[in-house]
């Protein structure tokens, strides 16, 4: 993946706090609309990003609002990518996929909807856990927008 800042179009850093979700949502919607995505797709894309960040705040950072999440939105040809970075414990969401809708309905109270929503909206999901050379976990969500 080319993660150089030359391709970086929009950047946001938020604290791991649900109160930051409005800022996050507005950032994603405004960024992808400016890049040419239509409003229906933009709202869904923002939902997918929010679900990923909600999971990080809850499960990875355990609501520690002093921790941070960074987002970069880049456009590559006909795709828009959001690169979400955190420095909490690594968790690869792809490991729990695929999730069947029937399973979500049967376990109404148990959650798991967030990753399911992401998988329904996003065209490609990649995960790179932190390692010796990279101190942050990186989740990349890609959506075709034309």
């Amino acid at each position, binding site marked *: 993946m080319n993660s150089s800042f030359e391709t970086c179009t929009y950047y946001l850093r938020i604290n791991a706090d*649900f109160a930051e979700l*409005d800022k996050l949502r507005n950032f994603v919607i405004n960024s992808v609309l400016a890049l040419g995505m239509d409003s229906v797709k933009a*709202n869904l894309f923002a*939902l997918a990003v929010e*679900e990923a960040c909600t999971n990080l705040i809850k499960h990875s950072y355990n609501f520690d609002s002093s921790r941070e999440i960074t987002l970069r939105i880049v456009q590559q040809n006909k795709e828009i990518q959001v690169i979400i970075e955190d420095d909490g414990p690594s968790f690869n969401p792809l490991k729990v996929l695929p999730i069947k809708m029937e399973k979500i*309905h049967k376990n*109404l109270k148990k959650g798991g*909807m967030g990753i*399911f929503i992401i998988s*329904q909206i996003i065209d490609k999901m990649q995960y790179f856990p932190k390692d010796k050379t990279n101190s942050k976990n990186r989740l990349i969500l890609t959506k075709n927008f034309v």
Partner: protein
Amino acid sequence: MFRLMEEKLSIRKEKLNSQLEIIYLKGILDAHSAPYLESSIGDSILSGASYLIFNLKELEYISSAGLGVFMAFVEDLRNNGGDIKFAELNEKIYIIFELLGFHLIFDILNSTEQAIDYFNQKKLRTNE
């Protein structure tokens, strides 16, 4: 906290009788505002409401945390003879309901009146 939250998610309730309540939601229902709604629904159920109609005409946004609130209550309500219905979903919200297959497990009605009729008919059937 709740005063600030009211600006993000407005919850207006209309109690039609001891069991039936219409709840109008307006604004943003995400992980931040979901506990506020959860607490409010809990209050309604404690006061005896078992048939809840959510009018979502003015709801601008919903995430899985918001959807999870309805899921948290619907099983218990149904087990006790009650239910949750949704009415007047706008396109943004309907797309998300459809994405999660919520239209398969919840009744989504075009108008609040239709939802009221449904509950009244069910009550009549129960009393027969």
